[in-house]
C-alpha cells in the first residue's frame, strides 16, 4: 500500500457503499479506490447486505464507519455492540474502523443522531478513557470523525479543534476529518475553518470525508443529500495543502444519485487534489 511521508496508509479516492448502487458496482466494478461501509448496516446475520459487502470486499479495500459507538456517551460502552463490530472487522478485514466524536444516547436509548459534546476537561478525560477501552478491545487504533453541530455549550472551555486534537493525542487515536462538517460548523458557530484545519495534527488524519448539505433558517444542516458545494471544495484544497495525501471519499446518504454521478464528483476531488499533491512533491 502506498504511504505518505509519514506511515499513513493511503487508499486513494473512494465512495460510501450504498444499497442503491450494489447492482451497478458488481456489474461494472467501477474504478473506485475503496469503499466505506456503515458498520451497523452489516451487523446482520446474512442475506443481501453481507452478500454484496463480501463481493465488494473481494475487489476493493473497505473501511468500516460506525454511527453508534457513542464514544462520548455516559452509559457504559456497549460490549455486545463492540463484539459485533469486532466480528464484522474479522470477517471483512477493513483497512480501518471509524466512528464519530459525539454521543448518541443515554439510559439505554439510541437517538440515532451524532450529538455534540461540551468541550470541557471532564468530557476530555471521559472520552480518552473510552477510546482507550475501545482500542484495547478491538486491538487497533480507531479514527474519530468531527461532527457537524448546530449547538455549542456555555460550558465549553476549548474550541472543537483543540478538543479533537487533545483526544487524539491523549488516546493515541486517529482522525477522520470531515471537510464538509468543518465548513458546516464554521458557518453555524462563526469560526474560521482554516484556523480549525491549522489546529489539527497532520499525522493523525487518515481519511477525509466530503459531502453536501442543506439550509434551515440561518443554519446549515449536514444532510448528505446534495452535491459538494464550491466552498467545501475550496476548503478541501486547503486541507490537501495542509495534510497531504489523505484517503478521500464522498458521503451520500439521501437523495442518492446514479453511481456515475458520484464517480464524476469523485473525479472532481481527484482533479483538485492531484495538482496540489504534485506541487507538494516537487
Amino acid at each position: 500500500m502506498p504511504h505518505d511521508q509519514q506511515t499513513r496508509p493511503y487508499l486513494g479516492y473512494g465512495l460510501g457503499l450504498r444499497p442503491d448502487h450494489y447492482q451497478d458496482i458488481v456489474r461494472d466494478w467501477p474504478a473506485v479506490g475503496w469503499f466505506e461501509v456503515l458498520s451497523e448496516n452489516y451487523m446482520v446475520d446474512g442475506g443481501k447486505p453481507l452478500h454484496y459487502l463480501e463481493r465488494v470486499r473481494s475487489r476493493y479495500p473497505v473501511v468500516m464507519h460506525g454511527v453508534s459507538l457513542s464514544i462520548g456517551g455516559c452509559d457504559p460502552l456497549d460490549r455486545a455492540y463492540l463484539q459485533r463490530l469486532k466480528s464484522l472487522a474479522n470477517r471483512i478485514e477493513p483497512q480501518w474502523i471509524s466512528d464519530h466524536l459525539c454521543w448518541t444516547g443515554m439510559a439505554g436509548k439510541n437517538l440515532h443522531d451524532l450529538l455534540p459534546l461540551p468541550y470541557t476537561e471532564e468530557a476530555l478525560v471521559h472520552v480518552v478513557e473510552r477510546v482507550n477501552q475501545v482500542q484495547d478491545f478491538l486491538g487497533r487504533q480507531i479514527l474519530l470523525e468531527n461532527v457537524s453541530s448546530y449547538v455549542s455549550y456555555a460550558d465549553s472551555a476549548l474550541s472543537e479543534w483543540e478538543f479533537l486534537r487533545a483526544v487524539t493525542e491523549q488516546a493515541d487515536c486517529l482522525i477522520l476529518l470531515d471537510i464538509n462538517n468543518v465548513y458546516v460548523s464554521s458557518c453555524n458557530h462563526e469560526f474560521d475553518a482554516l484556523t480549525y484545519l491549522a489546529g489539527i495534527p497532520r499525522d493523525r488524519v487518515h481519511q477525509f470525508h466530503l459531502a453536501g448539505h442543506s439550509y434551515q433558517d440561518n443554519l446549515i444542516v449536514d444532510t448528505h443529500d446534495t452535491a459538494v458545494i464550491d466552498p467545501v471544495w475550496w476548503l478541501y484544497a486547503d486541507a490537501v495543502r495542509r495534510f497531504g495525501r489523505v484517503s478521500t471519499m464522498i458521503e451520500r446518504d439521501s437523495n442518492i444519485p446514479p453511481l456515475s454521478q458520484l464517480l464524476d464528483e469523485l473525479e472532481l476531488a481527484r482533479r483538485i487534489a492531484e495538482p496540489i499533491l504534485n506541487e507538494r512533491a516537487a
Partner: protein
Amino acid sequence: MRLVHLQKQFQCYLLDGKSEIERHVVATDKASAMQRLAIYGNAYRLRLLEVLGEDFPGLKGLLGAESFAVLGCAYIDAHPSAHPSIRWFGRHLSHFLRERTPYNDRPELAEMAAFEWAQGEVVDAADTAVCSAEQLAAVSPARWPDMRVVFQHALRRLELHWNVPVVWRAIDDGTTTPTPEHSTRPLAWLLWRRSLQVHWRSLAEDEHWAIRACLDGRTLGEICQGLSERSAAPDVPLRAASLLKQWLSEDLVANIEFGEVPC
C-alpha cells in the same frame, strides 16, 4: 454542568420536548438556542419516521401519509430506539397497533405491519446451504421415514385473518389499493428467501401442519402419519413426497438429517 446531566437534559428535550437544556446552549445573532436545538428535535423525529416509511410501505399505503405520520409519532413516543442499529426500530410496531386505540379497531393494520416486518427479517436472516434434489435422491428409500427436513433460517410463518399480502402487492405495484378482506379462519403464509429475494405464498392447512412438524424436528415418517389424520389427499405418502419436492424446488430446504434432534 456535569456531562451526564447535560446529556440527560438534551435527551429529555429530544424525547419529551421539555428540559432545561436551552439554558446551556449558546445563542447567537445567527440563531437562538431553541432554533439550534430544533434542528436536532426535528431531525430526531424525521429520521425515525423515514425509517418506518421505508420498512412499512404497505402500512403507509393503507393509512395514507398523514395518518402514517401521526401513527409514527405515537410509536416514537411509546418505543424510543434502544438498539445500535436503526434497522430494528420498527420491531414493536405490529404489537403497538394491536394494543393501541384507535389502531386496534383496524386489525388489518397490525397484520400488515407483521407481514412487512417478517419480510425484513427474511432479507437479512442467517445464510444456509440449499439442499438439492440430488442430495435427497442419494438417500436410500428405507431411510426416508427417519429423515428430518431442516429449513432455511430465513423461513417465517404468519397466520393472517386479512389478505394483507394481496393488498401489499397492489400497493407495491402502484395500482389501486384494494379494500382489505377478512376471513373468519386465518390463512397461513410462508415467507422465505431465494437468491437474495423475498418470496411468499399461502399454505394449505395440511402443508402448514407439515412445516410446523418439520420445525419441531419430526421425522418424515411421523409427518406422514400426521398427514393421514389431517390431509384430504387420497394418497398421503404421495402428498408428503409432493410437498417435499415443492420445498426443494423453492430452495426452502437447507439440509436433511437423521438421528436425534440437536438441542
